[in-house]
């Protein structure tokens, strides 16, 4: 198990480096003159080349990359080309907001998908059909459209919850919850739908398995057979789907943050992308991938814990 974990961590580190490198190269391909963009049309050619020198843009790609990776390894992701702000600081300010809505969304998806999937699998009939239909809708509709509807109906029209803004958890837990609940729900819909279908399918398969019949032949009651044995067996494949959904959740957060006016990583990445602020964009990619790797690692551990074939071997 320890070897397994260490290997997963090593693979995760390699992944982050590869993605960072690919992003770096991609952003270097930009044909536009960055220094000119920063200084504006009125700047003289001398000013522009001075700015380019200041940013190190006159150096060869390899040198620039080496420089960046050297600093990144030491925990420094550089400064914004446009504002000069530390990328680390910007990320530290925005990451908690994104994590709040994404993790609350994951939690909602986890709980709801188990409940809905189990109910659909056990009840069958029209309940099953309704859940299945809702799941098709839920997976198809993009999260930001749901966010728009939620924002307009719940916040703008009914005024039940704040439409925009973020309250830190430390400042006011209830304020925090109010500010993250709508975006989290919007994000959770697709993940819930996809995972619920997985839970449903896996549970139906497990309930047909030979060992379930044998457990019943031993006189165990339905509660123990379904909730102790069957659900436990259905959990690993559901977890795999949830891990994939997490990546979608982070992506969805980029747009959903804009709807609710949350200054999260997505907003940071978006403004950096619009301006062409490579260091900031690069920083957001590195942090996002790291979060994905970390969460996948946690889910891997949970998977191994649930699946004895991985744990004991």
């Amino acid at each position, binding site marked *: 198990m320890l070897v397994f974990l260490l290997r997963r961590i090593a693979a995760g580190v390699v*992944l982050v480096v590869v*993605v960072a490198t690919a*992003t770096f190269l*991609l*952003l270097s*391909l*930009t044909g536009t003159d960055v220094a000119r963009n920063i200084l504006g049309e009125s700047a003289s050619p001398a000013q522009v080349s001075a700015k380019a020198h200041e940013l190190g843009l006159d150096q060869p790609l390899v040198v620039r990359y080496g420089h960046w990776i050297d600093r990144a390894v030491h925990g420094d992701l550089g400064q914004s080309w446009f504002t000069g702000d530390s990328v680390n600081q910007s990320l530290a300010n925005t990451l908690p907001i994104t994590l709040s809505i994404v993790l609350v969304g994951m939690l909602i998806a986890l709980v709801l998908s188990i409940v809905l999937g189990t109910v659909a699998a056990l009840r*069958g*009939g029209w309940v*099953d059909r309704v859940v*299945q239909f809702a799941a*098709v*809708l839920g*997976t*198809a*509709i*993009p999260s*930001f*459209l749901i966010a*728009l509807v939620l924002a307009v109906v719940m916040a*703008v029209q009914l005024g039940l919850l704040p439409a925009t803004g973020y309250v830190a958890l430390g400042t006011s837990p209830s304020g925090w919850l109010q500010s993250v609940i709508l975006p989290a729900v919007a994000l959770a819909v697709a993940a819930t739908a996809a995972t619920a279908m997985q839970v449903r*399918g896996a549970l*139906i*398969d497990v309930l047909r*398995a*030979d*060992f379930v*019949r*044998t457990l*019943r*032949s*031993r*006189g*165990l*009651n*339905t509660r*123990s057979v379904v909730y102790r*044995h069957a659900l*436990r*067996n259905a959990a690993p494949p559901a977890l795999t789907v949830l891990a994939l959904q997490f*990546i979608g959740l*982070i*992506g969805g957060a*980029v*747009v959903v943050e*804009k*709807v609710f006016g949350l200054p999260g990583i997505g907003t940071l*990445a*978006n403004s950096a*992308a*619009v301006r062409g602020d490579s260091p900031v*964009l690069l920083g957001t*990619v590195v942090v*996002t*991938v790291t979060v*994905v790797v970390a969460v996948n690692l946690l889910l891997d551990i949970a998977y191994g814990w649930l*699946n*004895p*074939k991985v744990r*004991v071997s």
Partner: protein
Amino acid sequence: MTVPETAAIPKRDRLLRRTLRDPVAVACLVILALVILASLAAPLLTDYAPDHSVLSDTLAPVSGAHPLGGDGVGRDVLSRLLYGGRTSLLGGTLAALVAFLVGGPLGLVSGFYRGWFDAAAGWIINVIMAVPAIIVMLVVMAALSQDLNVAMIVLGVIMAPMVFRLIRASVVSVREELYVDAARVSGLGDPRIMRRHILPVVVAPSVIQATQLFAVAIGIQAGLSFLGLGKASQASWGAMLNDGFTNVYTEPTLLVWPGLAMAVTILAASLLGNAVRDALGTTETRVVRRRRPGPRKTAAGGPSPSDRLLTVEGLRISYPKPGRSGGSDGSDGDKIVVDGVSLTVERGEVLGLVGESGSGKSQTAFAVLGLLPNEAEVTADQMSFTGKELLGVSQAALNALRGRGIGYVPQEPMSNLDPCFRIGSQLVEPMRKHLGISRSEARTKALELLARVGIPDPERVFKSYPHQVSGGMAQRVLIAGAVSCDPHLLIADEPTTALDVTVQAEVLDLMRSLQQEREMGMILVTHDFGVVADICDRVAVMQTGRIVETAPVEKIFASPEHAYTRMLLDSTLEGGPARAALGAPLKEVTS
């Protein structure tokens, strides 16, 4: 011994016809066709250019000139909606197309040849999938181009892993099929095997996924333009949503049109995919809850003799759908799988229930245990265990009996243990329930049982997971579980069929000794007359749902009465002459 019917893959033309019979699918197709038509005919339907802005038309109300009004910067909403449709449809198509062009061939080659190519492709795929698509799109649009169509082509590459995974998984599963091996042995080359045997299997899931990718791409494209990316000259639903959102307090209807258009298009595409899936029949059959009718007549047979464990009279089992339990000849329409079976088991007696696949022998056994699928309809004149009625009683009453009064030994050892729980806990749980003993008492008893069934290291097996023990070992564990609560009757369904012949002999020895030492009654379901001769006292021969003959074991073998029994016994090869050596005189028989 019954080989399960493989799910048949309908041919492609039949799939199309079945899809078109679904009204939802037809509705989706019509909606998509309308959206496509409206977008294509945009120049005919509106006179305004989508990016033509007139200051006085800012937030213009609905009028003849502007059927849907004007937007926040004075552009015609209808025109933007129609031209935006072009952007969305083109973008969705581009992305799905590129995803398939990239992911399809790669998945095909990866799944078919495996090896280093597969490993390398899998690694790259994992890298791509670890990054949220929309973040990659931000980077790409910042670096390369603000053109939404270029962005959608890149999105296609990002979504290619999903196609890759799907195609690879289907190819890998087909590749393992014996008919692909057979084709290879027949001399078919790889390209031909791909075309004839692999591609047809991949087509249907690909259609489903294409609709999903199309829908996802439209959503992501809209998300990007909602964020303000993309060229201002490209009208898009996402940009309209953005405009509507900035004016949400003054003119919320601006949100409605693009939102509706997008939702309808995306839903039509994914519901269409869903309908194709339904037509494929890959969704699981729905579990039908059916009230199990009680006995037709209650215990007319009077009080049973004291040594009588089990009495079954006139047992009848049928299924609402034809061909569910499958006669071996695959004939449809015959729903009755057990038809008027009567049998008894005395204390300490081993009854063999013999028959070929589809004879209903296992169904009969499961009926006694109350373990038939929910859709089975069971009736009987009488079915009682030591005087207690078995039919039409509550689950709780059955649960009190199962394990405690009647034990069950299944056929396939490995699939009958819960893979997620240690063997020990699976033995302890029923004992604690039935015998009301403490965890440590149950543990002691379980270890004794494991030793009793001939497991050399009970402590280790107690702590093991099922995948850590061999098949013969697992079958011993299952036998230990079956007798753990001291049942009076043991029902064993082909308990040795999945085992090697040397292990089978040991397991039969074990079952015989347990049966004798505990004076259990036993029903042994089997197709093997050797097993019958080894362990049974009495034999009931079943043919297509009926018992044709019941007799003591010596009599069955010495003087079978029914023609079917004789036919079965004649079919056994044992005792016949061995084949003569090649080139030996034809008539000579070595004995």
